[in-house]
């Protein structure tokens, strides 16, 4: 078995912070403009090259289904664009939730990168959006979510579709925090083999089984050069891979991220941690997300449903997994709880 360090030493990896987008889920989309600007400025000074800024569910995500944002995406992106000097601001766009006009708006406000996301089997709904990303001159990324739910081979087919539409980077996304390192290696190494040499590969982890850092290292070893994480781990479920943790480990292993580790640690501790009602933790319910393979954002409404209807969140999440619910289906959380109440009556 090959040692990890020789596989990753001297690799160049671009860190992509998610605490101002994925972190919006943990904050129920209520991050203030001041907090956004403050955190973005700190991350930029620490040398983080990409910062994602959007409602947790991407452009157009502000809704009753996912929760209303305290501010509009336009306001958030504009505020951060004023603050950062070097970092590229990225946005998330999920066809079916956000629209092409919203992407145009984001580009106008200063976004330089877009993650066009779909469920890992539905890449062909992203053609219009990836096309527009390229037209607008954005760093255009295809983002395949819930990637644990399909075989590696099927994932490769979907990635090739996104590449054919113009995606310059393709991500394998572990939205449920379900994967273990071997699952990651199988997917990333296969993607590296089938995609064009100039197409970059990214990996986005959730820390629900405590595997964010390990999985991200496996991804780098297998050929990923973009790693998503969040300062202080602020993200859905038990959070994303804590960026400062990954940066520290990267330094030890000789992975070149270009970030100032101590500055990044300070941002996490002094600017991000204080805004959280509680730090992300692998509690009973978020472990269940990773254990059963449920979309990480379902955590919050499952906990709400437990309070409202008395059905344990873990039971609701297990039922959602059994029903094979995927990203975006928050409405099914309350529906499932209501049905369970009827059944248990």
């Amino acid at each position, binding site marked *: 078995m090959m040692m990890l360090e020789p596989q990753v030493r001297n690799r160049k990896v671009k860190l992509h912070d998610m605490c101002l987008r994925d972190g919006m889920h943990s904050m129920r989309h209520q991050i203030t403009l001041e907090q956004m600007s403050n955190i973005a400025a700190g991350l930029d000074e620490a040398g983080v090259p990409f910062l994602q800024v959007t409602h947790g569910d991407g452009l157009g995500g502000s*809704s*009753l*289904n996912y929760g209303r944002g305290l501010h509009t995406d336009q306001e958030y992106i504009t505020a951060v664009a004023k603050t950062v000097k070097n970092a590229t601001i990225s946005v998330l766009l999920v*066809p*079916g*939730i956000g*629209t*092409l006009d919203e992407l145009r708006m984001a580009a106008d406000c200063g976004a330089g990168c877009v993650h066009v996301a779909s*469920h890992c*089997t*539905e890449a*062909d*709904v992203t*053609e*219009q*959006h990836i096309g527009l990303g390229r037209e607008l001159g954005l760093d255009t990324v295809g983002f395949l979510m819930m990637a644990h739910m399909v075989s590696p081979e099927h994932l490769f087919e979907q990635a090739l579709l996104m590449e054919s539409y113009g995606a310059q980077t393709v991500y394998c996304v572990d939205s449920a925090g379900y994967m273990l390192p071997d699952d990651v290696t199988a997917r990333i190494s296969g993607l590296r083999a089938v995609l064009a040499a100039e197409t970059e590969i990214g990996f986005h982890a959730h820390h629900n089984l405590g595997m964010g850092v390990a999985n991200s290292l496996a991804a780098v070893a297998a050929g990923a050069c973009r790693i998503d994480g969040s300062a202080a781990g602020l993200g859905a479920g038990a959070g994303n891979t804590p960026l400062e943790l990954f940066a520290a480990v990267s330094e030890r292993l000789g992975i070149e991220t270009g970030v100032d580790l101590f500055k990044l640690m300070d941002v996490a501790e002094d600017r991000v941690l204080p805004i959280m009602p509680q730090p992300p933790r692998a509690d009973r319910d978020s472990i269940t997300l990773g254990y059963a393979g449920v979309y990480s954002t379902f955590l919050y409404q499952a906990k709400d449903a437990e309070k409202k209807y008395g059905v344990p969140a873990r039971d609701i999440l297990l039922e959602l997994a059994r*029903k*094979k*619910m*995927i*990203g*975006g*289906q928050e*409405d*099914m959380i*309350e*529906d499932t709880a*209501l*049905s369970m109440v009827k059944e248990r009556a």
Partner: protein
Amino acid sequence: MEKVKCAIIGSGNIGTDLLYKLRRSEVLEPVWMVGIEPDSEGLQRARGLGLKTTPDGVDGIVPHVVEDEVQIAFDATSAYAHAENSRKLNRLGVLVIDLTPAAIGPLCVPPVNLAKLSGQQTMNVNMVTCAGQATIPMVAAVSEIQEVEYAEIIATVASKSIGMGTRKNIDEFTRTTSAAVAQVGGAAKGKAIVVVNPAEPPLMMRDTVYCETVEEPDRAAITASVHKMIAAVQQYVPGYNLKNGPTFEGRKVSIFLEVEGLGDFLPKYAGNLDIMTAAALRTAEMFAKDIQAGKFKLEQVRENA
């Protein structure tokens, strides 16, 4: 009375499901199916059922429209193709029922506003989207009782039930449904979200409707209105079911629906196809009866030179 002859443009899931329904109609007779792929399964199937077919798109049927007395055409292609298709067919005096999200003609959700369209002499009618057909009746049921500030719908469909036409125009799908939720549903503002789920066995179509009323919701009146509207939809989509709700949280009314299809073409999970084609059929039958009764005189639409 002689049936009104019609053509189906688009040989995919929606076009084929529509064909099976048209064959049962007492006022409509399908005579042509139009596709763009020579080896289309849909065209082959249509030929087997006795229809004339062409793989050359609408251009392939244009020379035959008048001779074959085609008076109504259903466009089940995609938003991108629709404007051209409609222009060519309207020129020949054909009424076009638009099943794409192009929405260039007035929007129609039968239990809400079909009757209003009779007598308007409109040559193009848009059926919104499957998500719109499934949810707008519920929005209307609430807005009939009280002013709705905002309505939001989430439609979840099985991956197998969505063809390439829909996938290539998800953006138009989202925007057209959002606009119709407000315009036809009667909300001041509307939003639509669509999720495509690949689960096996395929999931039955699910639709969630959230309405925010301006004043405190009248629970009893709204609940009664919702049940009445469900019964109205069940007249033409028997599998339209209330799964949970209506529930009330502050000014938010939540309605959870499931739509089971008849299983004409795709199996019953594809309720989304069924509600769309059933609505289109119902709309076309009303216009066909108007044509038969001499109430609707189809006119050849010429654009300005």
